[in-house]
C-alpha cells in the first residue's frame, strides 16, 4: 500500500495500452498485406503480496499474440501462380541464403531463373518429380528444392500399351487361308479395318493399320501393319509384312472373347513393344463398330504454361495439351501455429512454444488444400481495430488519471510538512 506502487501500476497500465495501440497500428498498417495475421495484445495481472490490511497494487504485463491460425478471406486473382492455403498449412519458403521459413503469403511470380518468389522475396520450396512420385519428409526440410520451371524439357514417351474395344460383325464372310492380311499379298482381304496412332521412341507419330479378318465361325485374326509401308490404293502388300498378329476365338453363344489370346503384341517401328488389349472385343450380329480405342505415349513438345492442382502438384502443360507433374508443393504446420515466431516478410519460424514443424501434402489432415489463382487476405478487421483503438485510448486516459491522482496525493503529502 503505497502511492508509488499505485502510480507504478498506472504507468504499467499506460504501457500496456501503448502496446495494444502498437498492435492496432501494426494491424491497420498491414490490413491489406497478403498472408498477414492479426496481432493482438493480451494482458495478464501482476499481483504484489498483501500483508494485513495493506493492499499493494500490482501491474499488468502484455503478451503479444498473433492470430496465425485464423484463416483470412481468399481473394481470387487471375494468376495461376498466386497460391493460397485453404486450411491450416503453410507454404515452405527459403530466403536467398537458404534458410527455410513458413508462410501463408503466396503471391508467387517467377523470377529471372524461373524460381517462384513471393512479394517478400522468399522462394517456394517443393519436392521434385525428377525421381518419380515424391514422398514428404515428415519432420524436416530435407529433399525440398526451390521450384524452378524455366528449363524443363519434355521427353517423348513411346507407346507401350493400348486398348481396342468394339464389335466385330458376327455374320461376316470368312476369308480363305492364303488371302489373309498376314499372307501380305496383293490379293489379301480383310473384314474390317481400323487404325491407331502410336508413338515411337523419339515421339514420332506412327499410324498402325489394324485389320480384323474373319477366318471361320467365331475365329478372327487381328493383324497390325505400319501404314507408312502400305502400297497405294488397297494397302496390300506392305513392305516388311505384319508387325504383329493374334488369332482370337469368340464364344458363338455369348459373343464374348474366349480362349487364352486376348491381346496382340507388336513392336512399334523404332519404338518399344506395344501390347494392344483386345479383351473387350465382342462378336455380335451387328456391323463393325469401334467404341473405344486408345494407345498411350506422347510426342515431345515444349511447355506452354503451368497448372497447379488442389493437391499442390505443379503440372507443366505442353503445347499438345498433355501435362506432366513437375513438383509437388508440401504444406507444413506446427502443433501451435499461434506460437510461431513472426519474422519480417510474413514468414514464421518455429519457436519453443510452437512445437516442431511437420511436413505433409495438401488435403492431408488439417493441412487444407492449395488454391491456385487466389490469395489469402490479411485477417485484420478495420472496424475491430478501430474499436480496439478507442478502447485503448480510453484505458490509457483512465490509467493516466490514476497516475495523476497518485501524483496529486503525493503533492498533498509533500505539502503536509509546511
Amino acid at each position, binding site marked *: 500500500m503505497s502511492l508509488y506502487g499505485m502510480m507504478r501500476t498506472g504507468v504499467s497500465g499506460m504501457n500496456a495500452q501503448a502496446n495494444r495501440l502498437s498492435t492496432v497500428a501494426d494491424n491497420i498498417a498491414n*490490413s491489406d498485406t497478403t498472408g498477414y495475421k492479426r496481432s493482438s495484445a493480451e494482458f495478464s495481472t501482476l499481483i504484489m503480496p498483501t500483508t494485513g490490511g495493506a493492499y499493494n497494487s500490482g501491474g499488468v504485463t502484455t503478451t503479444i499474440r498473433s492470430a496465425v491460425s485464423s484463416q483470412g478471406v481468399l481473394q481470387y486473382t487471375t494468376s495461376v501462380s498466386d497460391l493460397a492455403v485453404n486450411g491450416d498449412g503453410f507454404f515452405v519458403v527459403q530466403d536467398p541464403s537458404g534458410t527455410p521459413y513458413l508462410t501463408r503469403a503466396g503471391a508467387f511470380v517467377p523470377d529471372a531463373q524461373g524460381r517462384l518468389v513471393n512479394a517478400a522475396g522468399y522462394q517456394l520450396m517443393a519436392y521434385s518429380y525428377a525421381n518419380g512420385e515424391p514422398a514428404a519428409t515428415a519432420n524436416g526440410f530435407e529433399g525440398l528444392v526451390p521450384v524452378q520451371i524455366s528449363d524443363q524439357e519434355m521427353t517423348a514417351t513411346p507407346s507401350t500399351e493400348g486398348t481396342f474395344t468394339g464389335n466385330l460383325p458376327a455374320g461376316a464372310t470368312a476369308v480363305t487361308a492364303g488371302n489373309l492380311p498376314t499372307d501380305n499379298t496383293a490379293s489379301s482381304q480383310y473384314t474390317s479395318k481400323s*487404325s*491407331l496412332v502410336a508413338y515411337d521412341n523419339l515421339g514420332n507419330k506412327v499410324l498402325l493399320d489394324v485389320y480384323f479378318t474373319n477366318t471361320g465361325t467365331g475365329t478372327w485374326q487381328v493383324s497390325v501393319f505400319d501404314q507408312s509401308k502400305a502400297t497405294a490404293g488397297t494397302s496390300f502388300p506392305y513392305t516388311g509384312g505384319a508387325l504383329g498378329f493374334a488369332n482370337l476365338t469368340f464364344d458363338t453363344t455369348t459373343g464374348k472373347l474366349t480362349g487364352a489370346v486376348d491381346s496382340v503384341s507388336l513392336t512399334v517401328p523404332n519404338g518399344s513393344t506395344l501390347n494392344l488389349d483386345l479383351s473387350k472385343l465382342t462378336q455380335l450380329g451387328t456391323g463393325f463398330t469401334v467404341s473405344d480405342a*486408345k494407345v498411350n505415349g506422347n510426342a515431345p513438345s515444349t511447355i506452354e504454361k503451368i497448372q497447379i492442382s488442389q493437391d499442390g502438384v505443379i503440372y507443366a502443360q505442353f503445347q499438345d*495439351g498433355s501435362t506432366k507433374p513437375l513438383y509437388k508443393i508440401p504444406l507444413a504446420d506446427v502443433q501451435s501455429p499461434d506460437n510461431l515466431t513472426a519474422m519480417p516478410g510474413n514468414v514464421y519460424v518455429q519457436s519453443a512454444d510452437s512445437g516442431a514443424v511437420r511436413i505433409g501434402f495438401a488435403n492431408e489432415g488439417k493441412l487444407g488444400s492449395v488454391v491456385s489463382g487466389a490469395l489469402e487476405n490479411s485477417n485484420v478487421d478495420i472496424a475491430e481495430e478501430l474499436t480496439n483503438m478507442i478502447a485503448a485510448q480510453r484505458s490509457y486516459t483512465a490509467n493516466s488519471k490514476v497516475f495523476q491522482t497518485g501524483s496529486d496525493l503525493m503533492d498533498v503529502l509533500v505539502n503536509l510538512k509546511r
Partner: protein
Amino acid sequence: MSLSTALSIAQSALLATSKQTSVVSRNVADASNPDYARRVAVVTSTAPGARSVEIQRAANDLLFRQNLSALSAWSGQSALYSGMDQLDLSVNGVDNASSPSTAIANLQQALQLYATTPSNQNLGASVIDAARQVVSSLNDGTTAIQDFRTQTDSQIATAVDDLNSLLSQFQDANKAVIAGTRSGTDVSDALDQRDALLKKIAEYVPVSTFTRGDNDMVITTKDGTTLFETVPRSVTFTPSAGYTAGAPGNTIYIDNVPLSAGTGDNASADGKLAGMLKLRDGVAATMQSQLDEIARGLVTAFAETAPSQPDRAGLFTWPGAPAIPAAGTLVNGLAGSISVNAAFDPSAGGSAALLRDGGANGAAYIANTSGGASYSDLLIAYGNRLDQPMAFDTSAGITVSSGVTDYAANAIGWFEGVRQQASTNADAKEALATRTAEALSNDTGVNVDQEMSLLLDLEHTYQASARMMKTVDDMLDALLSAVG
C-alpha cells in the same frame, strides 16, 4: 464475421455477378448461331466469403448424334435428288421432250406416214430425219450422262478435298478441347467449334464418334472405318479425266478402306460422298445401260433380214456393223456410237427408198422384188418390229419383256420411279434433319427472353452487393468519426 469480411464477400459477389453477366451477354450475342450451345454460369461458394464461377455448356449428346445422322442422310439424299433432277433434264428434257422414247415415237409415226404413201420420197426423207433425231437423242443422252458422271467425279474430288480440310480443322479444334480439358479451362468455345466441324463432316460421310480421356474425340464412319483418331486419316480419291459408258468410277479410300456407296436401293444415300457415288455408278450408269439397250433394240429392230442370210444392220448401224449385236446382251456405249446408216441417208448420198425396198446389204436382202414404189410391207414390218417383244439384258434394270418403244417408255418410268422415291426420301430426311436441329436448338440453344430475365436477376444481385458495400462504408465512416 467482420466488416472487412463483409466487404470482401460483397466484392467477390460483384466479381461473380460480372462473370455471370458476361456469360449471359455472350449467350445473347450468339443466340442465332446454330452451332452455339448455351452456357450456364454456375456459382459455387467455396472458402469463407469466396464464390467461384464455373461455366457449364448445355449439351445433349443423344440429340446431337441424332442430328448428325439426320444431317448425313439429308445431305446424301439431297445430293442424290438434285443430281437426278439434273440428269432428268439433260437426258430426257422438259416433259421428256428429248427422251429416246419421244424420238422413237416420232420415228414410228413418220414410218406410219411413209408406209401409207411409200412412193412419196419426202416422207421417206422425213423417216430418216426422225431416225436422225432418235440417234441424236441417244448420242446426246450418252454424252449428257457421261458428262454428268465426269462432273460428279470432279465434285467428288472437291468434296474429298473439303473433307480432308475439315478433318484437319477438326484436329486443331480437338487439340484445343483436349488442352483446355486437361488444364481445366473453359472449353465451351472449342467444343462449339468442334461440334460445328463435326456437323459439316457428317454432311459428307455418316459418322459415329466416341470420346476418350480428356474429351479426345475419335470419329469413325458408320461402318467403322477410322476418320480421325489423334490425327486425321487420309481420304483419297483420283478423279477420272473422262468417262465412257460401262467404265467404272474410281473408288474413294478413307484410311485406305474403300468407301461403299451403301446398300439399299438407288434412291437413298447416306452422306454426300455416298450420294454422289450412287449417282455416278448407280443411277447414271444404269440409265446409260438402258440407253445402250434401246440402241441395241433399234439396231436389231431395223436389221435387214433375208431367208438363209444372216441378219444385217439396216437403218441404224453401229461400229460392229454389218453384223447385229448379240441378242439380249448389253453392249456398253452403243447408244453413243449408234448412227444412221449412210446408205439410207439422202444427205449422205444414200436413199431413203432402201428402207422401203431393203437391200442395203446386197441384193439378197431386197424385199421389194417387184420394185413397186408403193411397196409398204417392209415399212409396216419395221413398225411392227418396234413393238415386238425382244430380249433385253436384265442388268440394265428393266426386266419386263417388251418392244423397243415400250422399253424406252419403261426406261423413263424406271428413272422417274427412282427419282420420285429419292424425292420422297429427301423430303422425309429434310424434315427429320430440320426437326432434330430444332430439337437440338431447343435443348442447347439460347432463349433471349430467358437470358434477359436472368440478366434482371443479376442486376438485382449486383445492386444488392453494391448496396452492401455502401452500408459497410457508412458503418466504417461512423466508426472513424467516433475516433476523430
